[in-house]
């Protein structure tokens, strides 16, 4: 009976996800769109060679990806939580709503717009630097500066997504029993203790869940965002896995290579998700999969 409820959703997943997923066999083909999957020549593991060739550029790309990922997980998880807590502690309902609405606005801008806003405002001829130059001050060199590119990218993600990421935490906060707070203040607990003993535990399972889900996508960091800014800072500072594949495969219309990398990323995701899930269980968290039926 319960399984019956899953049928419509499963049907959609099978039709529009798993069926075309079979198309990923082109990872083992020299795929030519006009020949189609059936007639394109097979080429074994050739498409995976970009990943195994040990090209120093690939190593750079992988390194950058990991650094940016860590930065993003670090910042893009903590700031929204902090924001959610901050907001939650606001007294007036009206202000709460206004602030929330304002903060989630940037989520609706496409990367093209976000990048151009950053460039216009912080660029060498933008209002900030124009002001500094007119007053004979040192210019604020952040856009197009390879040395701080990874921080800039993270900052942009934060600006665009922090308010949006906060929403789920707010929903989770709403489920915490207010009586717990009342009881603990009767016991004389301070705000800090309440945060530590009530609020964070209340958020913990959501945080863990989101972290695990993010890990599944760990090797994906802002493709369009980075591609748009690559010229300005050079490849060494900005090449990530997705742009590497793009620059080395897709640019030449090489669909097989991008499918191959997609598969590998999926596999890495599986390993990370399963591993993180195990870890979560070890700490007594439900994680993604419930351990066993109750």
């Amino acid at each position: 009976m319960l399984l019956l409820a899953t049928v419509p959703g499963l049907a959609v997943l099978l039709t529009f996800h798993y069926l075309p997923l079979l198309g990923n066999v082109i990872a083992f083909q020299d795929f030519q769109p006009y020949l189609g999957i059936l007639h394109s020549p097979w080429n074994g593991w050739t498409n995976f060679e970009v990943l195994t060739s040990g090209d120093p550029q690939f190593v750079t790309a992988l390194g950058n990806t990991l650094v940016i990922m860590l930065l993003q997980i670090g910042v893009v998880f903590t700031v929204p939580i902090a924001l959610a807590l901050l907001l939650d502690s606001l007294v007036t309902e009206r202000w709460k709503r206004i602030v929330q609405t304002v903060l989630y606005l940037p989520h609706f801008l496409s990367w093209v717009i976000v990048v151009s806003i950053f460039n216009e405002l912080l660029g060498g001829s933008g209002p900030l630097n124009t002001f500094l130059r007119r007053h004979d001050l040192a210019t604020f060199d952040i856009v197009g500066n390879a040395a701080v590119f990874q921080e800039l990218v993270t900052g942009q993600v934060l600006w665009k997504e922090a308010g949006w990421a906060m929403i789920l935490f707010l929903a989770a906060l709403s489920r915490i029993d207010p009586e717990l707070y009342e009881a603990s203040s009767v016991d004389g607990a301070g705000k800090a203790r309440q945060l530590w003993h009530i609020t964070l535990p209340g958020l913990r399972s959501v945080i863990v869940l989101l972290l695990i889900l993010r890990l599944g996508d760990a090797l994906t960091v802002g493709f369009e965002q980075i591609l748009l800014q690559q010229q300005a800072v050079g490849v060494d500072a900005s090449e990530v896995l997705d742009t590497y594949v793009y620059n080395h495969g897709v640019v030449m219309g090489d669909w097989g290579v991008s499918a191959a990398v997609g598969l590998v990323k999926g596999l890495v995701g599986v390993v990370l998700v399963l591993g993180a899930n195990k870890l979560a269980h070890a700490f007594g968290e439900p994680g993604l999969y419930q351990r066993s039926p109750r």
Partner: protein
Amino acid sequence: MLTRRTLLRGAAAAAVSGPLLAACGDGGADNQNTTERNQGVRLPAYAPSTVVKPDLPGNADGLLDAFLSYPDPPVQQFTGPPLTGGTVSAFVLTGSPVPPPKENNPFWQELDKRLGTELKLTITPSAEMAAKFSTLITGDDLPDLIVPALFLPNGVPAGIGNLPQWMATKCTDLTEYLGGDAVKEYPNLAAISTAAWKQCVYNGGIYGVPVPRGVAGTLMFRRDDIVQKVGADPDPKSFAEFRDFCRKVTDAKANRWAIVNAGGLMFLVQQMLGGPNGWRWDGAKLTHQVESEEFRKALSDVVAMYKEGVVHPDSFAGNAPTKRWFNAGEAVLTADRYTAWPQYYAENVAGPAFKISGMRPPKYDGGGWAPTWQSSAGATNNFTVFKKADKGRVKELLTLCNYLAAPFGTAEFLFRRYGVAGTHYTMQNGGPVYTQAGVTQTALGVRYIVDAPDAIFIPGNPEATKTSYEYQKAVIGTSVPDPVIANGLFSDEWSRKQPVLGGIVNNGQNDIIAGRQPLTYLDEMIKNWRSQGGDKVRQEFTEQLQKLGVK
């Protein structure tokens, strides 16, 4: 269309260019796309149009006709619609915001009426062409006319493997309809230059109709009004004087720099040095621009100039709005195509004082002008292929194309480009000026199916038209082509690897100019370029040049 400017933005102009989607092929046994076969194609016999007389005539070197005003009244070339009923479907690209759908689009409705058929268009933004095209060709339900002009989202032409093979299996070889004198049946197609038709040759046949452009390519635009105000000599006589010019017009505190980007500097300084346009062929050895001594010298000069701060500080940014900087006077020079000339006038905010012209490159050490580079994309913007169809249908489509290629000065051209007088444009000072409805409704992308030869015409500004014409006239005689383009060479490796090789040059050059790498990095860059495919490309081209006996 979009390629050259975008490439210049970062740098490495000629390095990445070449015929759009020049031939590919996997070199297998079924590969019909060989230089031998392509050289043997009977191209359409050229018969320039005599329908309209230009105010300032072009010439055989590639100088375009110029018009000081739109002929009034315009010449009516056709008496009735080219087709009688039916539908014609086309896959086209557009660089403009999407136009209103047919039921809200009087221009489109009127176009249908004048063409005598229902035109069904799949309009795709140029930035998304590569993805859309790849899916389109996996299906078998192709439109009648297809524009296979592919660009990556950053405006670089996308390499697509085996495009010629796709054309061989799915598209019509137009040679029997257009080759030699056969084209005379379609006089407006016969008026398209041979150089443009060359870009439509694949698999030993004519596989499309071109959208022609002038061969003059890119030039260095200069804000004459600002130069005059600053009091600099607008025409430096050597590199040293040019550097002084740049220093003089730069005033960072006033938000003004000499040039929009370092790529433009590379472009100009290489020309001063007489560097190769794309490739250099000395009869025995083929050298790519990047490997030349001129490139090295130009790079070191540009590095020094960049350090001095004469280049706009945000120039390396992706999507840098260089046109706006130039119009705003944030930069005095910008390298752009001829077709940008009217646009700068249309969008200028400096008022009537606004004046631009082309800056000719002097010889590096003085003593006259240096030759300029011809367009790196040949004489076309793009071309359009025909889905395989029976003879009668192909002839119908060619009749339609003949109509759509009615030359500048005709009533058909005026309608096709500008719409209906009063509704879509108004005549001001002898030139049509769009209304709001005109801008949005006419952006159907029909002009990318086929077009008449380009003409120099800056609406409502005969003086500017004359300046543009005179500049082109002055440089075209001595301008140098890319030998690879001029000889119609094809290299499979080149067509596939062009974006990658271009990327190596572009990134390396940017790294060096921005100071992230020392000048010596150039050697590593060249080594990279050669090993990633450059040497193979050279070999393929060299064999062909030798076979053709080019000296």
